[in-house]
C-alpha cells in the first residue's frame, strides 16, 4: 500500500486527510495521481491543478518520480508559511 496524505485547501476540497492506495499497477506519482483522480469528479477537479505540489517520503518530489509499496506520498497546494 501507498500512504497518501492531503493538506490544506486540497484536504478540504477532498474532505480527506489521507488514505491507503493500492500500489498494484502504480509505477510513478503521476500514475498514483491519475488513479486518485478516477475516484470521482471532485477528485478529478482537485487533483487537476498544475500548481499541485507533491512530496515523496517527506521530501519535495515531482510527478515523474517512481513510487512503490510502503511509500508515503503527500499532495498539497503551494506552501505559504513563514
Amino acid at each position, binding site marked *: 500500500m501507498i500512504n497518501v496524505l492531503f493538506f490544506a485547501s486540497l484536504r478540504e476540497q477532498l474532505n480527506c486527510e489521507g488514505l491507503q492506495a493500492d500500489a498494484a499497477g502504480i509505477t510513478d506519482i503521476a500514475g498514483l495521481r491519475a488513479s486518485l483522480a478516477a475516484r470521482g469528479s471532485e477528485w478529478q477537479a482537485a487533483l487537476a491543478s498544475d500548481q499541485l505540489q507533491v512530496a515523496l517520503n517527506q521530501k519535495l518530489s515531482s510527478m515523474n518520480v517512481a513510487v512503490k509499496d510502503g511509500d508515503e506520498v503527500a499532495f*498539497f497546494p503551494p506552501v505559504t508559511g513563514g
Partner: protein
Amino acid sequence: MSISVQAEGFDPGAEYNLLRSENYVDGATAMFVGNVRDFSPAESGEQQSVAVLELEHYPGMAEAALTDIARQAAQRWPLGRVRIIHRFGPLAAGDEIVFVGSTSAHRQAALDACAFIMDFLKSRAPFWKKEFAKGAETGDWVQARNSDEDALKKW
C-alpha cells in the same frame, strides 16, 4: 543547528541569549522574526482585517525541510549557530510565527543566511496559512505569491 516546529509561542530575546551563550567566536548575530499582521494585503488593493491565522503543517516533513534548508545555509556560509522555530495552530494578530537566527564571524554571512533561510522556508517548507476575519467561521487560504518563488532565483 536547532530546529523546532511547535504550537507554543517563543521568546526572541531568550533565543538571542541561546545563540550568544558561551559564544565568543562569532561577532555577528542576525535574526528574523515573522509576526501575524492584523490585515490581509489583498492583491485587489482591498485590505481585510484578520482576527485569527490558522497554520497547518505536515508533521515530520516540516522539520525535515527546515533542517535541510539550515544545512544548505551552513554549507554556503561560515556559520556558528543556526536556530529556526516555526509555529503551527491558531495564532492571533501580533503573535510570532517564525524565528530564524544565525551567528557567524562575518556580518554578511549571518544576514545572508537569515535571508536565504526565510526565502527557502517560504517556498519549500510545508506550512499553509488560513486567515479568519473577525467573527467569521470560515477562513480563506492564503495564496502563494509568485514573488516568493522569484526570491529564490537570487541564491
